């Protein structure tokens, strides 16, 4: 019996060996160095990134080996703790960037980038965000403007409201609601709600409070933060599908209600990247959709813009890695991604936007009178996660606001402690 089973097993395995061998006889080879890159980008983003590095590969003969993962935080935390790292990597957020830099894992980029050109081409706020202890360690490969109000010119022809009150007073067709909101986003569910809160804090109480708040110096139970939640509560009260619809709608298709017939809603609040997602994809900018910036609430704080972006850093300072890093922030490289739509560049000289809408949102980013970065991204990760979760809990039951804010205060007291 033994021999029969063994023989069968061996025959099977041998057959497999032949198949495997036949599958894969193509050789690798060629000269040039390989640069390994790990990032969070997948799908269309991965494609855009690979197109972006293609000219560099051609020019230098080097090769980019890209791996995308949505577990970026896990992978890089483990990698930094063990000293096994890719050459370049997307970074989960400013907080982790600072941590990785202080542990000496991230290499400083002075002397790697063409620093003067980089600083002159890039929005100063974004340069600062990539700087830890006076050294540039992170750069923004792509960015976005948050808090734009989208609408379909077919349903809304009036002049864009200048103030929140004006916006509130716009009458809505009886069949629809004023807002479309979608908070579902897998593990990150709730984040679109945090953008709402951030916009309210910024415009009700100004950039100073906003910055103190993400830095943990303003409590969540503070009236200035609480009133932002309450304003969001009003939005939910007039959102298509009610609270349950808001919770179960994926953010990607969150604005699709603008395009249905009859429209389910009049406005949708989302970042500039929505144009590459859901129902926006395949629609024509300008005729099918348009946007106006989040209107002012307190005129004192007029013109503030919130942005976000994907940070990138270097773990190994090989010549090939340095050369790639230098290339990535240049305008010609940035132009390649920008041209595909859905992404903005932090580089002022990257201007190949596919349409007028993208150009206008890019102008907001680089020409903002006062620029703030996405507050939730700047918070410690534990705080950020609690913030996301709070948005779901609040939407589900607004009457629990006080206890939700008290819980956030508890997390705040814990999360900002130095390690």
């Amino acid at each position, binding site marked *: 019996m033994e021999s029969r089973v063994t023989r069968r097993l061996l025959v099977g395995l041998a057959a497999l060996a032949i198949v495997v061998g036949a599958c894969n006889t193509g050789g690798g080879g060629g000269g040039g160095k390989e640069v390994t890159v*790990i990032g969070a980008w997948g*799908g269309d983003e991965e494609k855009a990134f690979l197109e972006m590095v293609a000219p560099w590969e051609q020019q230098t003969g080097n090769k980019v080996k890209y791996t995308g993962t949505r577990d970026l935080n896990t992978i890089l935390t483990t990698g930094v703790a063990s000293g096994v790292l890719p050459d370049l990597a997307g970074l989960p957020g400013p907080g982790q960037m600072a941590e990785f830099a202080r542990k000496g894992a991230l290499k400083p980029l002075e002397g790697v980038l063409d620093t003067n050109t980089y600083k002159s081409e890039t929005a100063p706020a974004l340069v600062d965000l990539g700087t830890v202890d006076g050294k540039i360690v992170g750069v923004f490969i792509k960015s976005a403007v948050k808090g734009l109000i989208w609408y379909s010119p077919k349903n809304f022809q009036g002049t864009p409201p200048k103030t929140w009150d004006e916006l509130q007073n716009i009458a809505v067709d009886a069949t629809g609601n004023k807002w479309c909101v979608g908070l579902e986003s897998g593990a990150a569910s709730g984040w679109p709600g945090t953008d709402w809160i951030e916009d309210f804090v910024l415009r009700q109480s100004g950039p100073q409070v906003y910055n103190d708040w993400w830095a943990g110096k303003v409590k969540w139970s503070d009236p200035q933060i609480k009133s932002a939640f309450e304003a969001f509560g009003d939005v939910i009260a007039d959102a298509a599908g009610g609270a349950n619809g808001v919770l179960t709608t994926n953010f990607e298709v969150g604005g699709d209600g603008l395009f249905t017939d009859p429209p389910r809603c009049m406005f949708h609040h989302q970042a500039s990247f929505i144009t590459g997602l859901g129902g926006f994809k395949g629609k024509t900018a300008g005729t099918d959709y348009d946007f106006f910036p989040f209107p002012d609430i307190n005129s004192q704080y007029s013109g503030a813009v919130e942005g976000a972006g994907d940070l990138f850093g270097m773990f190994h300072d090989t010549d090939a890695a340095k050369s790639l890093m230098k290339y990535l922030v240049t305008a010609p490289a940035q132009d390649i991604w920008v041209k595909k739509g859905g992404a903005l560049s932090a580089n002022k000289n990257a201007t190949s936007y596919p349409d007028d809408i993208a150009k206008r949102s890019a102008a907001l980013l680089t020409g903002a009178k006062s620029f703030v970065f996405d507050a939730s991204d700047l918070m410690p990760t534990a705080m950020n996660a609690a913030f996301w979760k709070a948005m779901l809990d609040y939407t589900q039951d607004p009457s629990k606001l006080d206890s939700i804010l008290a819980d956030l205060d508890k997390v705040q007291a814990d999360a900002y402690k130095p390690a």
Partner: protein
Amino acid sequence: MTAGQQARERAVTRGSRRTIPRPVARIALHAVILLLMVIWLLPTIGLLVNSFRDPQDVANAGWWTALLPPKDLGLEGYATVLARPDIGPAFVNSLFITIPATVIPVIVAAFAAYAFSWMNFPGRNLLFVAIVGLLVVPLQATLIPVLRLLRDFGLTGEFAAVWLAHTGYGLPFAVYLLRNFMGSLPREVFESAYIDGASPVTAFFRLALPMSVPAIAALAIFQFLFVWNDLLVALVYIGLANPSNLPLPAQIANLVNSLGSGWQLLAPAAFLSMALPLLVFVALQRYFVRGITGGAVKG
């Protein structure tokens, strides 16, 4: 009298009247099995139908609507998945990773299970239970120390790194399952073999192993599946150092972008990635047939 014989007598003396007529019972049996099969298949059928649909439709209407005319089904999703430039090499990598990562723990566990079942040594039960207890260790808690070790031995990025790691992670269950099965084999079989002068190695290969084939087949399938579908271990031990060696799940994960867009493509990808494990299962089914153990569980 053996336990089985006693049981048999109890079964006979307690109740002997058949209450349900045989044909009715047969129909009920088939009905129950078919119902369970439908329930189990339904979610997967939903996925299968959606794998042929346009992502936009998937988000907007239930999968069953696609079964009614106008049918709007296509193979674009499959084409997109297969068009990824590295999908072929990733499939081969998956084989290179999964086969040894299945074979090693099964063989190593069989050695250990045999020792636990048929050799006497002090602390046997305690050691065994400690090994089973290791089942509860969360793999995530081992990533950093193990990655450091692999780095020290220059194994990061190599297939061998995941072979060894998956062997370690798979062993507690493998030893548990095989020891339970081998331990239930009849003592006389081994005793008579030893009397005939067989060495433990011979008894292992000639008796214990062939008689445990159903358990080994089951174990091989599970280990194959876990390794085949694993992404985390591969990303950490291979991906950080040498992404060229990454397996199929890494390629599949890249279909989705950082905002979660493109998740609909996971449907065709799931079917492509499921095909081989299912084939392995069907191929190994023949070892689950009655009689291969020759009545191993003593009756």
